[in-house]
């Protein structure tokens, strides 16, 4: 069953005009910023497919910028994103890109830079405001904007996953799903978990203590 709750149909509060081209676009950018984990100074936004064709009339560009500024799809401030970016000194640029046929027509590539570090995130808006993050720094991803998603980038070493699993058990976190994607050349993996309950702050602190872990992010939308 696709719609299990009445709130799937009468509970999505969002800035218009389009759940896929506005709300979903904002959500991808919001999650991208959560993954970056800090305020970007420069962002390069590549619009693909239908996003490239009709971004103007749907406010897709405004919505993406708003998400990168930390606004969620139900924030009435979205429409002021250009002015706020100006005020906060966020340097942004848009370009039309062709990511290829493997990507959903409503996709965007977002490169964030804070002066020291860079991250590139590709996400797709798949309808009704729902999204999927497809790539994080060239590592294949596949998580959406579901609440209680834990995303970890770690060195691809023996025992890395055991340490993560043990920590999750220690904090009694029940996991609904888990996936790993690896870059064998760089010897890093991206691991993501969808938990049944909220992810406690202490758990993140505990995970960060392991040397093989590069970063830990919580997506709580």
């Amino acid at each position, binding site marked *: 069953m*696709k719609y299990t709750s009445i*709130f799937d149909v009468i509970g999505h*509060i969002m800035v218009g*005009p389009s759940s896929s081209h506005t709300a979903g676009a904002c959500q991808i950018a919001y999650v991208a910023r959560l993954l970056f984990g800090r305020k970007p100074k420069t962002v390069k936004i590549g619009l693909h497919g239908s996003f490239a064709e009709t971004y103007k009339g749907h406010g897709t560009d405004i919505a993406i910028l708003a998400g990168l500024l930390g606004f969620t799809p139900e924030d009435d401030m979205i429409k002021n994103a250009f002015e706020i970016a100006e005020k906060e000194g966020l340097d942004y640029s848009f370009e039309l890109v062709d990511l290829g046929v493997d990507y959903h027509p409503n996709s965007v590539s977002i490169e964030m830079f804070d002066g020291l570090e860079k991250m590139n995130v590709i996400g797709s808006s798949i*309808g009704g405001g729902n999204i999927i993050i497809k790539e994080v720094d060239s590592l294949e991803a596949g998580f959406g904007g579901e609440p209680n998603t834990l995303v970890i980038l770690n060195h691809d070493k023996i025992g890395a996953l055991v340490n993560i699993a043990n920590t999750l058990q220690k904090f009694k976190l029940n996991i609904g799903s888990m996936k790993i994607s690896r870059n064998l050349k760089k010897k890093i993996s991206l691991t993501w978990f969808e938990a049944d309950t909220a992810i406690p702050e202490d758990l993140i602190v505990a995970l960060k203590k392991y040397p093989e872990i590069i970063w830990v992010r919580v997506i709580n939308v």
Partner: protein
Amino acid sequence: MFESISNLLNESKTKGIPLHELIINDEMEFQNIPKHIIIEKLNKSLFIMKQSLEKALISDIELPIKEASHQAKRMLSPGIFCGNNLKEAVGWAMAIGEYNSGMGLIVACPTAGSSGTLPAVLFKAKEILNKSDDDVLNALIVAGAIGAIIGNKAMLSGSEGGCQAEIGVASAMAAAAITYMAGGTHLQIDNAIALTLKNLLGLVCDPVAGLVISPCIKRNAIGVVNAFLAAEMALSGVESIIPADEVVDAMMKVGRKLPYELKETGKGGIAATKTGKRIRKSLFSDIL
């Protein structure tokens, strides 16, 4: 969620539990949320619906398609053919539609493009029937369940099933809600849904330039009239020969058969007219 409309209506009838209570119980059990949170979320949706209407009526919204701007307020004058209530409700739905197209904050019900229909019908029915806020809340619950059931049996997006799956469903949700609000029987609610969906069966999704503006905003108007008409017919005892569930099945099949050009691609229907193409060209010629 309930498997079918008849499933929901029959369970309420045989158990003697009012529809809104049955739906809340289901939500509590299967979503694992306490009742007060459900009520809080419903109130939030209602608040945003009210706010979108209030703000829409005092805003001066310029849309990317200029010709489509400032149309709703023209409907806020006394009715010539429609009667003041119906005309005003249509004006409200169009106002929320314009507000949505101008990046206003709305409740997608079921989608953003069809977000004007349900609030306009609910608020006008409340006024006509002199009902309380709680009655509106209960009607909204019924609308939500009907929308979710139709979504599971068919679809809730123009890209999958055409406008029948957006305005059509919004209109059916609204018709069910106000038939319930007016004290209609289970059979009358089923009839109201069937009549609404039948009237908009096969409606295509053909947005000019691919934007949620034209015909979307004004399709909310037919969503309102159709909902009031179906509820009026059902409450007067007019029956649909085909039960609501079977109409939904038909809608699903029609939606699947609709060609790609008529499913939100902006490539068929009024989007492919001379004027539609001219507007598209004027909007996107200077892209980046």
